[in-house]
């Protein structure tokens, strides 16, 4: 990719596969699109929604999309099984994922969640880490996307995002207490943008342009409520089942995770230390064979420095 000309017939096609249907979680991409940032970089970006069981790593590795969004463990897993992908940016500096319990269930701390049934996504490591690090035991059951069981069962422990599941529970009249896995020391990057090693090697400029536009899009999406309104309307259009209020809630709540830590100075930042920690933790949990080089998992060479916005206005 070379051209830096404004949007024209010569724009280079680039595609990104999202982690989920279009929501606030993917708002930055739509904001970049909305503001014409991609076009300015000479990119014609095709945003493909994900879905409950869409495997972004496979889609990207096979060339069906250029970029994908996933969590850091998935990138590590992929690398370990020989899939030549590499993380180029990490949107969620602090991992929002954790578990929630009914506020009136008497549970204050991880220890109190022992022996209960945890509704968690199969294959995720957060719960394993808690088990190990807190020395507690519990049974897990598949989380199928609906928290109805949790709403019904006062003792249940429900995996979720404070931006989504917590909101839904609240809407159903359930006051919850949220315990993030990060608070237990398990804090891999989330919503990591990755591409293939080949793509990065062959198109460093294109990656840089894409990330540049994306990060500026995110910055604007978080700080410019007028823009956010427009973007959210677009999201609503792309994802008609999206609840507007829920989406605004998520828009607001997710910003602290995007701008936490290194994100304050550079959106999407990644450090060797964090990746090393992750590899260590995964190895301890038996999810990785020892010997994976953390440095091979990510590459910040194409990541421009776009600082987080200084003010985060409230939702309109």
């Amino acid at each position, binding site marked *: 990719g070379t051209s830096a000309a404004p949007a024209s017939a010569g724009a280079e096609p680039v595609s990104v596969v999202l982690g989920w249907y279009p929501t606030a979680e993917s708002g930055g991409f739509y904001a970049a699109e909305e503001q014409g940032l991609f076009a300015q970089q000479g990119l014609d970006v095709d945003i*493909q929604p994900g879905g409950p069981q869409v495997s972004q790593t496979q889609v990207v590795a096979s060339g069906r999309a250029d970029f994908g969004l996933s969590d850091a463990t998935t990138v590590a897993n992929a690398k370990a099984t020989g899939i030549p992908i590499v993380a180029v940016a990490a949107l969620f500096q602090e991992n929002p994922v954790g578990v929630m319990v009914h506020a009136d269930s008497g549970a204050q701390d991880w220890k109190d969640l022992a022996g209960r049934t945890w509704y968690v996504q199969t294959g995720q490591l957060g719960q394993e880490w808690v088990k190990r690090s807190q020395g507690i035991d519990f049974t897990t059951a598949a989380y*199928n996307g609906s928290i109805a069981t949790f709403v019904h069962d006062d003792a249940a422990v429900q995996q979720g995002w404070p931006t989504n599941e917590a909101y839904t529970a609240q809407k159903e009249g359930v006051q919850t207490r949220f315990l993030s896995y990060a608070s237990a020391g398990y804090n891999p990057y989330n919503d990591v943008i990755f591409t293939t090693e080949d793509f990065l090697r062959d198109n460093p400029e294109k990656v840089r342009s894409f990330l540049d536009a994306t990060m500026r899009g995110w910055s604007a999406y978080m700080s410019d409520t007028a823009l956010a309104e427009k973007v959210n309307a677009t999201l609503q259009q792309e994802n008609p089942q999206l609840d507007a209020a829920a989406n605004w809630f998520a828009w607001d709540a997710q910003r602290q995770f995007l701008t936490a830590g290194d994100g304050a100075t550079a959106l999407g930042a990644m450090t060797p230390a964090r990746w090393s920690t992750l590899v260590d933790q995964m190895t301890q949990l038996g999810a990785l064979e020892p010997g994976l080089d953390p440095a091979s998992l990510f590459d910040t060479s194409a990541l421009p420095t776009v600082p987080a916005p200084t003010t985060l206005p409230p939702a309109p």
Partner: protein
Amino acid sequence: MSIAEKTPATPPAQTPATPQAAARPTVPRKAPSGRTLLSFVLPPLVVLVIAVALWQALISLFGVPKFLVPAPLDVLAEIGPAIGTLVEPTLVTMGEAYGGFLLAAVVGFAVAFVMARWNVAERGLYPYMVLLQTIPIIAVAPILVVWLGPGPTTNTVVAAMIAVFPVTANTLTGLKSTDRNLVQLFAMAGASKRYEMSVLRIPYALPYVLTGLRIAAGSSVIGAIVGEFVAGIGGGQGGLGYVITSTAQQLLMPRLFLAVIAASCVSLLLFGLVRLVEVLALRRWHESAMSSDD
């Protein structure tokens, strides 16, 4: 009582001139009258009313929470606001499901033919048809997505994968149940295997085939929805699978139920078409579709 008493039978003279010479009347059977139509529409309606009443009663009695099962009235009330967002997904799923159904029908027939034609093919392939049926879509979805891209094409294929086995299994049983003497008659007359298939075995197997298609009618719809779960909606418009995931996640139960009802309608429509073909094709000659008196 003597027998002689009742002897004088209707003398031939009383009967009209012999119609034996004239061709027999054929198929002046009446179209279903209002009455019969009613007898087809009424029972499911009655069941519907009872089911809905029970549903409401259970919810009221046991206090089933709305986030688990919405009340019928809530679902009804949701129609207005939701209809706009449901039409298009329903059409998308319909397209995928019907496409998958057709694909399953064609492939299912073809495989069954091959297996009926060559015994060795049956023995060799049947286990793999079973196997195909058992493969969780999640295991093959990535492959399909890579080949066909996410979205409708892949979902159509997934629908076909799920619907194909019932067609094959039933068609095969039907083809193999064909009256042996007729088969031998065809062979003796020098019929090609193809002719035998198309003129003899397929019509003979029709009742079986149509039962397979009935099953496939439902399977293909569920297949299209499952496809959307695992293969995503791609660049296209999301179908009912998307609506279901999305509403389940947000606990929008009335809307979720509406989506499920929409899916059911999609399959009932297909099912109705299969039924129609069944009635038209079989009622004149097959027990299962004939009226009772003749």
